[in-house]
């Protein structure tokens, strides 16, 4: 029983947030901040697999998020909303409960496939050169979307809120909030299981000594493929949720600025620490909202905080440690079996 304390606590927290939002104690604003937190947790922890555990410098995470957002949006718009080009909804709203998760999975799958654009060059290239490739991948994706008239090009794409309405029409609950919270728990859970397995430990082995890894029987190409595709796939999942939270996406919201923001969260939290990434994503979102009164000066203060962090704690909030390393007693309260 004690072993499940953490899991039970986590789901109790989710239930509490959902209940508070349902009863309007948490207003629209707080609910959306919590949803962005969830999306940021997913983005930061998935990028951490590449930038933290594998030690590569991927700065195109926004691109994969974009693929996930657009592909899943296309799916749900096709299924559940009326669109000028795509026509009337194909499915009745009751099916949104099945259709929406499937659309998210399709988006994540497409983003994982897009991850190949970076994964395959990574067999031969690393470091700065691979960073340039990830940057290029980001630009390729954004430019492609900008030129696709079917998804509105630079004007953006909308109609995703029909899915939310369809679900709320059947059962009145804040469905997007529920999906985002479950999505972020799923992301961290999946990554955690991967990096604690002997298979997943091949990833930091590549980071620490790639030649030794290859010669000690780690199939480095396979590990890179898994790491990049898992990372970009989960970014795609986050993108899909983000698109449905906002109900509207445009290519500009996934450009290099977004990728940088995610990178900041990873370095803030500590490379190679999943709890660090989650803590950083939450505190970064809070900070962004708390400093809203500074207006444009926010963009002076936040980078300044980053400079100070790099000066005085370059390893980030958590370093490469997890919460359970710092507080070993926590281990009593959860199990990963």
């Amino acid at each position, binding site marked *: 029983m004690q072993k499940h304390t953490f899991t039970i606590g986590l789901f109790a927290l989710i239930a509490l947030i959902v209940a508070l939002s349902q009863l309007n104690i948490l207003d629209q604003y707080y609910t959306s901040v919590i949803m962005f937190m969830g999306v940021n947790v997913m983005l930061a922890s998935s990028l951490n697999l590449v930038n933290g555990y594998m030690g590569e410098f991927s700065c195109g995470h926004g691109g994969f998020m974009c693929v996930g957002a657009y592909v899943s949006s296309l799916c749900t718009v096709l299924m559940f909303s009326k669109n000028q080009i795509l026509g009337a909804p194909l499915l009745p709203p009751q099916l949104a409960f099945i259709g929406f998760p499937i659309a998210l999975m399709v988006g994540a799958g497409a983003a994982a496939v897009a991850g190949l654009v970076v994964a395959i060059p990574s067999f031969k290239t690393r470091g700065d050169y691979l960073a340039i490739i990830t940057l290029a991948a980001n630009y390729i994706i954004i430019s492609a979307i900008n030129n696709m008239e079917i998804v509105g090009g630079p004007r953006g794409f909308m109609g995703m809120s029909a899915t939310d309405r369809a679900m709320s029409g059947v059962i009145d609950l804040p469905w997007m909030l529920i999906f985002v919270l479950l999505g972020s728990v799923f992301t961290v859970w999946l990554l955690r299981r*991967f990096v604690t397995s*002997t*298979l997943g430990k091949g990833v930091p082995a590549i980071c620490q000594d790639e030649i030794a890894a290859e010669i*000690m029987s780690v199939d480095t190409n396979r590990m890179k493929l898994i790491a990049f595709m898992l990372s970009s796939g989960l970014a795609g999942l986050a993108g899909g949720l983000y698109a449905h939270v906002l109900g509207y996406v445009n290519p500009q919201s996934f450009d290099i600025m977004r990728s940088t923001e995610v990178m900041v969260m990873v370095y803030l939290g500590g490379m190679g620490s999943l709890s660090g990434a989650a803590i950083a994503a939450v505190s970064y979102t809070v900070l962004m909202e708390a400093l809203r009164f500074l207006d444009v000066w926010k963009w002076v203060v936040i980078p300044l905080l980053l400079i100070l962090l790099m000066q005085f704690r370059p390893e980030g909030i958590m370093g490469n440690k997890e919460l359970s390393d710092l507080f070993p007693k926590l281990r009593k309260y959860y199990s990963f079996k």
Partner: protein
Amino acid sequence: MSLLEINGLTRRFGGLIAVNDFNIEIGEHELVALIGPNGAGKTTVFNLISGFYQPSEGSIRLNGKDTKGLRPHQVTALGVARTFQGIRLWSEMTVLDNIRIAQHYRLGYSLLDSFLRTKNYMLREKAIDDIAWKLLEAMDLKDCANELPRNLPYGVQRRVEIARAMSVKPSLLLLDEPAAGLNSADVEGLIKLVRWIYDTFPVTIWMIEHQMTVVMSLCSRIKVVDFGTTIADGTPEEIQSNPTVIKAYLGDDTI
């Protein structure tokens, strides 16, 4: 059939011939040394065997199987493990993890198994763990299982590296200058360790070594190379009195 059969192995780097027409045949359960002056191409031979370089000419056969075109991890899966001249442990992971990861080629579970923690996953991880702990215990490294390698003394790091190589369950163990940088007490320990490995496991050990005390007290057969070419091959006694070897190491007195 011999374990390792190298025929006419040549490797050029541009105009430099690092290894020239290298031949050797090593049977099962032998202890062989490869010696030669610095820059003679010894490590290149090891790099060629482990698949890190591809030969320019010639062939390498392991248990009769040609390793041409195989990537290093595939060669390792055939039962070749090695250590490095400079220690190359994963320094930010515990000793235990270092030894676990070297069993990557026989994980026996898929990515999906690791997500779902299936029964197969649990069984395999348990087996990997058992092998790691047994090795650590046998090689007297149990106390530092949860230490990071960079916090360990140099001599212990060497032992960890050899333990990591042994967790591959190799039929051929390549040791690249295992005694380099060790003090005399550690060298003695190393000789005992290599002897113990040789007596305990069905493994052929082939080492590059400069310290003659190590070579002479362990190896039954020595191959000497210089400028990429084999200049002598024989028992320790034969090598010690071989004039070509003496010339390679001490130089020629004719100017």
